[in-house]
């Protein structure tokens, strides 16, 4: 009896330990603990928030979106007036962010390729210059560079009367950068249609040429024919319809420039800083990508009798792209994210007009922060989906 009484709890406790040592049980237990903890924290935050909102007499919900935003925005791509709704401000901010990011991405990629190739140059001096370009730009903060361009360069430009001009078409002064605005006349639509048609035709020619080369081995001068179609067709149509395009030139009238398209100094500073800063990172991506193709590939191509140009085009670049594109795309993502630093120099991007001005005016912190985060997250998800698709496309086909 005594033995049994002593033994039974021990056996029972051991069985609990055994039960706890079961991996599946533990897994469920850990997950339950984490889930409960997260839910408890979320509930705690929610209760606090609603208490806080009540205490401050603030409402929640997205009703404020249709309310009028009383402020004006310095520079917009979408038409906007001070009486428009907060939702309009959101859209205006998104478009302003995307415009500056897209332009910066295009130029940064070009500059990045140039710098990356310079870095690999056989010329010692050129490669050193590129190396120092990369080191200096990568090791100083982007915000510092933005402020530098804005405060120490673009703000110190001469006023409109003394502005720098190029061909009497482009002007740069402390109010911004001015360029001619294209004004399509009647019948310009035909040229646009011709451009679309030319793109489709070039694509069709390329597909046909590839098919023919696969079938017969005969090559076709796709590049030159395509170039001819791309430029020839729209130009012909443009001339045939009587050149229906004129330009609105910016011109100095009184104290400022009138007409044309203009971008503010903040745009120029942000664009330049984003472009130069990110080109350094992109140069590194290009360099690493090209270096990742082994020298044996070049030698093999030469021994097959390919000329250096063809080796580069048909052997090296396609393989290097596999290593260059993924970091390049994540750099593009970073350009979009870093364009949010616009707020420091007053360029009206999404964060500046929505997360700062609108938030301060309407007080709907939670909704506004969530909407801004939603925008950046959807950009990021789109880009990473594109990246996954590309990776699947170029993945090495192994056994």
């Amino acid at each position, binding site marked *: 009896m005594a033995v049994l009484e002593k033994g039974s709890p021990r056996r029972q406790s051991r069985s609990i330990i055994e039960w706890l040592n079961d991996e599946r049980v533990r897994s469920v237990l850990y997950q339950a603990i984490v889930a409960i903890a997260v839910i408890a924290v979320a509930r705690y935050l929610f209760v606090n928030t609603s208490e*806080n909102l009540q205490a401050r007499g603030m409402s929640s919900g997205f009703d404020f979106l249709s309310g009028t935003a009383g402020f004006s925005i310095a520079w917009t791509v979408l038409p906007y007036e001070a009486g428009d709704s907060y939702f309009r401000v959101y859209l205006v901010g998104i478009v302003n962010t995307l415009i500056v990011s897209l332009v910066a991405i295009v130029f940064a990629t070009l500059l990045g390729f140039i710098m990356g190739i310079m870095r690999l140059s056989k*010329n010692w001096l050129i490669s050193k210059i590129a190396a120092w370009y990369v080191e200096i730009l990568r*090791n100083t903060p982007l915000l510092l560079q933005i*402020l530098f361009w804005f*405060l120490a360069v673009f703000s110190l430009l001469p006023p409109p009367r003394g502005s720098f001009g190029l061909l009497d078409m482009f002007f740069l002064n402390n109010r911004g950068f001015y360029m001619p605005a294209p004004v399509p006349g009647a019948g310009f639509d035909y040229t646009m249609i011709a451009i679309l048609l030319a793109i489709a035709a070039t694509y069709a020619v390329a597909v046909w040429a590839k098919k023919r080369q696969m079938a017969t081995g005969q090559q076709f001068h796709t590049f030159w024919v395509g170039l001819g179609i791309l430029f020839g067709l729209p130009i012909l149509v443009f001339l045939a319809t009587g050149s229906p395009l004129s330009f609105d030139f910016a011109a100095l009238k009184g104290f400022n420039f009138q007409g044309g398209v203009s971008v503010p100094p903040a745009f120029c500073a942000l664009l330049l800083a984003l472009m130069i800063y990110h080109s350094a990172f992109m140069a590194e991506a290009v360099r690493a990508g090209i270096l990742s193709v082994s020298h044996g590939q070049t030698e093999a191509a030469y021994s097959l009798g390919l000329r250096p140009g063809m080796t580069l085009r048909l052997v090296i670049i396609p393989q290097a792209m596999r290593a260059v594109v993924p970091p390049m795309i994540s750099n593009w993502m970073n350009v979009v994210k870093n364009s949010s630093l616009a707020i420091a120099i007053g360029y009206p991007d999404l964060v500046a007009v929505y997360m700062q001005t609108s938030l301060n005016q309407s007080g709907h912190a939670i909704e506004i922060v969530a909407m801004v*985060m939603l925008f950046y*997250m959807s*950009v990021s998800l789109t880009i990473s989906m594109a990246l996954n698709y590309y990776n699947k496309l170029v993945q090495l086909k192994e056994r």
Partner: protein
Amino acid sequence: MAETTQDDVVFRPKPSLPPPPNTVGVVGWLRKNLFGGPFDSLLTIVGVSLIAYVAYSLYQYGIANAVWEADTYRECLDVTKGNGACWAGVSTWMNGYMYGRYPDVEQWRVNLAGVVLAVWLAPFWFPKIKAKILVGMSAVLTFPFLAAHLFLGGEAGLFLQVMVAVAMTLFATVWLNVGASYLGYPSLRVALLRLSGFENKGDHLHKYVLLGAFGVGFVIAFAYQSTWELAAVPTQNWGGLFLTLVISGIGISSALPSGIILALGRRSKMPVIRVFCTAFIELFRSVPLITILFMAVTMMPLFLPVEINPDKLVLVIVAVCIFAAAYMAEIVRGGLQAINKGQYEAAQAMGLNYWKMMTLIIMPQALKVMIPNIVGNFIGLLKDTTLVSIIGLYDILLMAKASGQDGKWLGMHTEPFLFTAAVFFVVCFCMSKYSQHLERTIGGGYGRR
């Protein structure tokens, strides 16, 4: 006759000629690397003239036409006519760039904390010292309390006082350990036991001796620190490079542990944990840091109970830590993925459990692979810390900007920014060079041989 023919048959190579003089030495190097062809020569000439132009302009701007002593920016401009730097303004503001509005008479506290940290971590680089984990862990876990007390000053609570005393005792332990090692003892532990005569008096007494020694040290430290009378310096007065280093230092030291936990969570087989970790990482990686900072200063006060009114600096540091952890998690995940599956299987076959497998087999290898990325992330974090200037913390960048908006030095923008850029460049460049050095030394043995 026969002998001479045999002599003729033997192949006797003539001594090889020296290489053509234009392929060796300076000339050869120049021809190979700078003047390989007409296009190459053109590039070189363009490059040389570019460098000469930049160097000449920098010399003219920064040295030849620069003004080193002036009282206002106007005085500078009168001398330079806008063609030279006004370093006088930078040197006037130097204190601000370094410490912000930290009171002059209290700045020794910041310097002291910096020196203490440097001395604390120095044994890392002593080849003889074995207990590097003690050095690292003690500094990471207790130095922040000591630093917080030094920086903040004022009346410290009991907890903070205890932690400060613990930090001081551990600091002493680290350096006594160094001393013991160089005096020929295997470790401080052995040295203490030997000197106290307990080495051969039973193992069960050892830990009491060691605990006693630590206790004596603690009591002395506690008594010593309770005599301190430090004037309170609120966080609003913190600024300059000091503030930048505080924020990024906390971010950097918290990033690795929290990143490792998040990465392990994301690779876990438990769906709930995996989903939470993935959501956390992806959310904070896909949004810009500035939105996280805004979220911290506008939304965090709403999330917390009404009676808690958190300091802005605390909110910012929390935001930076979250951001750094999310980025670090992806780097750690990349490192874990780079480890051969055979290593996991071998560890499991040896009967190691999950945590032992991770800490003894997987992480040491993964961390070696990750060094360049980790240091790259630290550099990125240090640079990103400048974003706190947007929400109004006077870090080095905002001080630099503010110095050009001040009455006496109105319009001075280029010089402070050049100075700040130089500071960041030196720090970041050294970090990246050091990481390359680490890669070569401890990263060796993995990958190419």
